[in-house]
């Protein structure tokens, strides 16, 4: 795939609309092309910005009432005062979709947020951020191998305190920290490396329940996600999955410990 072709396909790639074969060809080009990487990062960034921050206009209850009043009642012999026109919903649902799922789709906005594409969009953003961080020396805003330097740096920048732990002894030395913008908010990024492979650890507060390690591979990068004590954690790297997971496990074990056991966290 040449540059022109790849550049044209950037939106489809960032929307997960390419076939597996097309995506593979695209990625071969992307890995070596700055311009396409920038274009990709911009597409992912703008897409996420609109998705998470643009207003979603909900219909007013008055509009639903008005519609029920305006719609012909011919299909239903019984008069109903409810805004649910069940006959209609059943008829509509009968056209290929199971009614229950249709009702669920209509009424559950939380479903909207839980669709796989939300997760896909998030991993896309994380990878775009990871790729960006590898360019033009923007890996770290604060460069230090000392956790007692990196940790205070985040203070005053953020309304939460990310854990900064050095793992030199296990072969994953701390390299620094920076701020980034993911999923519509400012997040902490703590940078490690292992044998010249940079590792970005993304941290932000999240009210969802604790969850164990989950691995994903996308665009040739490995990601591990977990949540503990009200924080969301993502590690992203080109490091092989097994090693990245063992790193994530040691982090997870440290973070899972009660606060006191970790001392001055």
């Amino acid at each position, binding site marked *: 795939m040449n540059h022109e072709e790849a550049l*044209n396909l950037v939106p489809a790639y960032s929307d997960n609309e390419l076939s597996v074969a097309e995506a593979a060809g695209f990625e071969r080009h992307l890995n070596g092309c700055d311009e396409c990487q920038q274009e990709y990062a911009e597409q992912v960034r703008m897409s996420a910005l609109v998705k998470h921050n643009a207003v*979603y*206009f*909900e*219909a007013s209850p008055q509009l639903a009432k008005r519609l029920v009043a305006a719609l012909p009642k011919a299909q239903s012999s019984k008069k109903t005062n409810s805004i*649910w026109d069940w006959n209609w919903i059943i008829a*509509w649902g009968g056209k290929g979709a199971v009614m229950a799922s249709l009702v669920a789709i209509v009424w559950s906005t939380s479903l909207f947020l839980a669709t796989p594409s939300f997760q896909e969009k998030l991993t896309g953003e994380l990878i775009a951020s990871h790729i960006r961080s590898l360019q033009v020396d923007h890996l770290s805003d604060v460069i230090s191998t000392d956790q007692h330097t990196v940790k205070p740096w985040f203070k005053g920048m953020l309304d939460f305190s990310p854990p900064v732990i050095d793992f030199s002894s296990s072969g994953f030395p701390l390299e620094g920290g920076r701020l980034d913008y993911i999923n519509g908010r400012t997040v902490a990024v703590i940078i490690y490396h292992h044998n010249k492979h940079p590792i970005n650890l993304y941290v932000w507060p999240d009210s969802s329940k604790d969850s164990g390690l989950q691995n994903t591979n996308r665009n040739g990068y490995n990601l591990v996600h977990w949540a503990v004590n009200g924080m969301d954690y993502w590690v992203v790297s080109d490091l092989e999955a097994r090693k990245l997971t063992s790193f994530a496990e040691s982090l997870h074990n440290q973070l899972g410990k009660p606060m006191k056991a970790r001392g001055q966290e």
Partner: protein
Amino acid sequence: MPHLDSAFNLARWLTHGNQEAEDIVQEAFLRAFKFFDSFHGDNGRVWLLGIVRNTFYTWYQQNKQQSQYTQYEDDLHSSEASFYRSAEESNPEAILMQKDSQRLLQEALRELPIEFREVMVMRELEDLTYKQIADIIQIPMGTVMSRLGRGRKQLAAILAAKTQQGGSQ
């Protein structure tokens, strides 16, 4: 009412006010009801959004001579029913900053040409696939892709210009 929020959200993003959007949604639902027998697809939402869009463009053709709406309701203040998907911050300054950036984003989206705005609303807010968007607008999937790509680039440019203006005040 199935898919009412989706219908209203699209109509509201195509028009500039609640009243117009509600009229279009009502007209679209009446048409959908009337032509329900002609629906053979498996996705009622896609089918309905196509009708909403056609209803809008018919209305727009009829009305564009009379009203060149120079004024429109301020989205953020007029729509109590709307909600923000983004996480809430506890810090009041952060809320102000977020409100401000949301206002900028809202304005920037309004400035986008409608053919870009509609594909972005369908993609990002309604979570539709290229194929579904192509079916609604009746354009090739490649055109959906290029409109999304150009729309996002233009949005980034508008936002960059707005942010600079704000900073120099």
